[in-house]
């Protein structure tokens, strides 16, 4: 079910919900909701209930909690007990006030919403030991632990802070160090120091922090030190919108350093993959001795799901400890690590560092997921997406195929270096090619254009919202129609 409480939801398109999903909406918003959509809303007078129970309209969310709990068939004492645990520390009046409001919402729903059918069976389950609730940030942090990370340096930044919070508690218990640095520059530099010292080291940040870390990341490229940088994207440039969604740091991840240093950029496509990809990141960083940037985003970071705990366990393939190099430097240097400036020496090192990256695409298993039900040469359209957008694109593709469209899809998790052979095959589609991503300029499209020589459409958004399947499907259809017109 969906619950709508805020006015700002109506600033953008209402999320599409399949017909059978009940959409509960605060009654005070109902008239403007009806204007915006012909959707099927179930009004819940939560603002009113909150006020009647002695609170403020802002506490409508607590009333809504009671409504949802009643619909799910949860026992009232249990719900009120959890609420007390949550608010108990805030003082007696807050706790009592929320108790009354939640009860009011619950009692109202129990009496008035008996007609609402739910798709899920919400009856209690006896055994929950091996089930967890997890979000993308926690998955990434767990993934780092499982991959043998033993040094983590953090600086608080939305939306990446929870990764540091998790590791601050858990990493010392695993024998590692979790350090809050004075700024992001200190964070990346201390991770590089730990990497030099033989440990698997990592930092987590967002756009503004990535900008600060660019010099350090370049140092990792030049000194050939493995390090993992998790960048949880949010809209930029600069402070941007700290709590919104975007996929606009790709080019900064690939090209953000001065000079021409090597980097690898990975992007998980789901909460599960936020966990899985960390082992790949550390192994690859060590194998290629370069920085690996893992691009997640606000949406993945905060999306919660239930899962089997077993899906989030693993063992690092190696202990991750490397012997110390004798000397590292950011100056151009020969194989022994000492400065070299001769034209031939310099060229040799530049070529060596560049050539090692040619093996990345084949080294990483499952660099891209290929969905060519209809085969690229036969497809009307070839779509491509990365990161959290993949889930929405898959829904859109499913809907469009039902309408008879032949679609080939490519979902890379290795964004850079490019997964060349998959992209070459994908670009052979007879129809048009569309790359769908959450940034204004089509950043992955720009990278792909350096490899394939046929035109690519960039279907993009920079509105700070996740891309929705209906919008994506609509956009794809528009482009396909336009192409058909152009052809005639």
């Amino acid at each position, binding site marked *: 079910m969906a619950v709508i409480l805020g006015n700002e939801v109506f600033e953008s398109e209402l999320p599409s919900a399949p017909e059978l999903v009940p959409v509960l909406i605060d009654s005070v918003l109902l008239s403007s909701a009806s204007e915006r959509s012909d959707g099927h809303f179930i009004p819940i007078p939560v603002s009113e209930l909150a006020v009647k129970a002695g609170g403020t309209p802002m506490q409508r969310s607590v009333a809504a909690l009671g409504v949802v709990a009643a619909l799910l068939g949860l026992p009232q004492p249990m719900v009120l007990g959890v609420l007390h645990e949550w608010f108990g520390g805030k003082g007696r009046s807050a706790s009592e006030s929320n108790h009354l409001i939640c009860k009011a919402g619950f009692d109202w729903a129990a009496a008035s919403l008996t007609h609402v059918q739910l798709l899920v069976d919400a009856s209690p389950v006896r055994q929950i030991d091996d089930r967890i*609730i*997890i979000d993308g940030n*926690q998955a990434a942090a767990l993934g780092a632990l499982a991959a043998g990370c*033993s*040094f983590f*340096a953090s600086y608080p930044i939305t939306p990446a802070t929870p990764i540091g919070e998790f590791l*601050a*508690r*858990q990493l*010392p*218990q695993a024998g590692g*160090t*979790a*350090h809050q*640095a*004075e*700024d992001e*520059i*200190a*964070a990346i*530099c*201390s*991770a*590089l*120091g*730990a*990497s*030099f*010292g*033989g*440990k698997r*080291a990592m930092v987590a940040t967002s756009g503004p922090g990535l900008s600060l870390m660019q*010099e*350090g990341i370049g*140092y990792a490229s030049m000194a050939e030190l493995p390090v993992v940088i998790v960048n949880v994207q949010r809209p930029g440039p600069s402070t941007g919108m700290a709590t919104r969604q975007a996929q606009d740091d790709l080019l900064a991840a690939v090209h953000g350093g001065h000079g021409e240093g090597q980097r690898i950029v990975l992007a998980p496509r789901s909460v599960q993959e936020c966990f899985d990809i960390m082992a790949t990141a550390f192994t690859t960083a060590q194998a290629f001795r370069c920085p690996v940037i893992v691009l997640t985003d606000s949406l993945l970071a905060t999306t919660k799901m239930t899962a089997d705990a077993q899906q989030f366990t693993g063992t690092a393939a190696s202990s991750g400890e490397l012997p*110390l*190099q*004798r*000397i*590292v*430097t*950011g*100056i151009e240097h020969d194989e022994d690590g*000492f*400065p070299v400036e001769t034209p031939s020496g310099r060229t040799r090192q530049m070529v060596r560092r560049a050539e090692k990256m040619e093996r990345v695409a084949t080294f990483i298993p499952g660099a891209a997921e290929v969905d060519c039900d209809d085969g690229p040469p036969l497809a009307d359209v070839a779509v491509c997406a990365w990161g959290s957008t993949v889930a929405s694109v898959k829904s859109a593709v499913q809907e469009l195929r039902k309408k008879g469209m032949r679609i080939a899809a490519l979902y890379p998790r290795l964004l850079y270096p490019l997964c060349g052979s998959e992209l070459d095959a994908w670009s052979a589609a007879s129809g048009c090619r569309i790359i769908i991503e959450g940034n204004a300029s089509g950043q992955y499209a720009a990278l792909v254009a350096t490899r394939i020589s046929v035109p690519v459409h960039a279907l993009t958004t920079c509105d700070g919202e996740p891309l929705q399947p209906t919008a994506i499907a609509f956009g794809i259809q528009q482009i396909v129609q336009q192409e058909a017109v152009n052809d005639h």
Partner: protein
Amino acid sequence: MTTDHTAFLRQGLAPSWCPGCSFYQVLDTLTRSFAALKFTPDDPVVVSGIGCSSRMPLFLSTFGMHTLHGRALPFAFGCKMAQPERPVVVVAGDGDLFSIGANHFLHAARNNHPVTVLCLDNHLFAMTKNQTSPTSPTGHCGSLSPSGTGAAPLNVIEFAIAVNAPFVARAAVSSREHMQQTIVAALSYPGFSFVQILSPCRTYDPNGKIGLGERKLRLINDTDGFDPENRPAALQMASHALDYQRGEGGELPIGVYYKKPAIKHTSSGIIKKTPFAYQNIYSSLDPLRV
């Protein structure tokens, strides 16, 4: 068996400093200090930033990290966390440590990062050809501030004590034996230790006057009743030595200004391990919180 101090010098790579540079004296003294502490070349990690003095690790046979301008301290901290048994020594200049790197110095000191910091202070940026640095005297002119800085120099001793550095000392290349004793004491201290080493630039300060002016060096222990464990007294002694203006008379004390009593350890090694706050904070079992 004692390692001869020359074993700490990199073979096959001559230092690139100007002939007569005071840093040769620091290099020599540093190798003698390592030898005196019975290290082998496989023990220390020498971490530097960018600048003339930051070239130091390239000329030593120890492990070395030649890092980014101003950032030696965070690199050193990460390395120490990964290799806690090794002595980690930061060698950098006044511009590197107190211009771009001042923030990192502040936090390394207050967090008691267990590294030794040697500031080779020539009161200017030498490698980039003579700009003023935070320790240049008032009115000193450099190529990017040709009319002079107008600001009083940063008193790095006072600053270090103020931000809770537990070991703060000043030495000078003109007093070699004292410099070696001070470096050995700093390396032996089980916590953050800082030594400002007055080491003039042969090229841009050939008379060595920028730092000292007309003053003479004086051993701090010659002051009656000076107790380096007394922090207010240390601050007072440090603040009197502030003004580097030429022509001022008086004396500049060198020696250990402040030394906080160290936590006693039971390990028998020369370098004692310090418990770090971050490793001990979460010592109790903490259930996984969502």
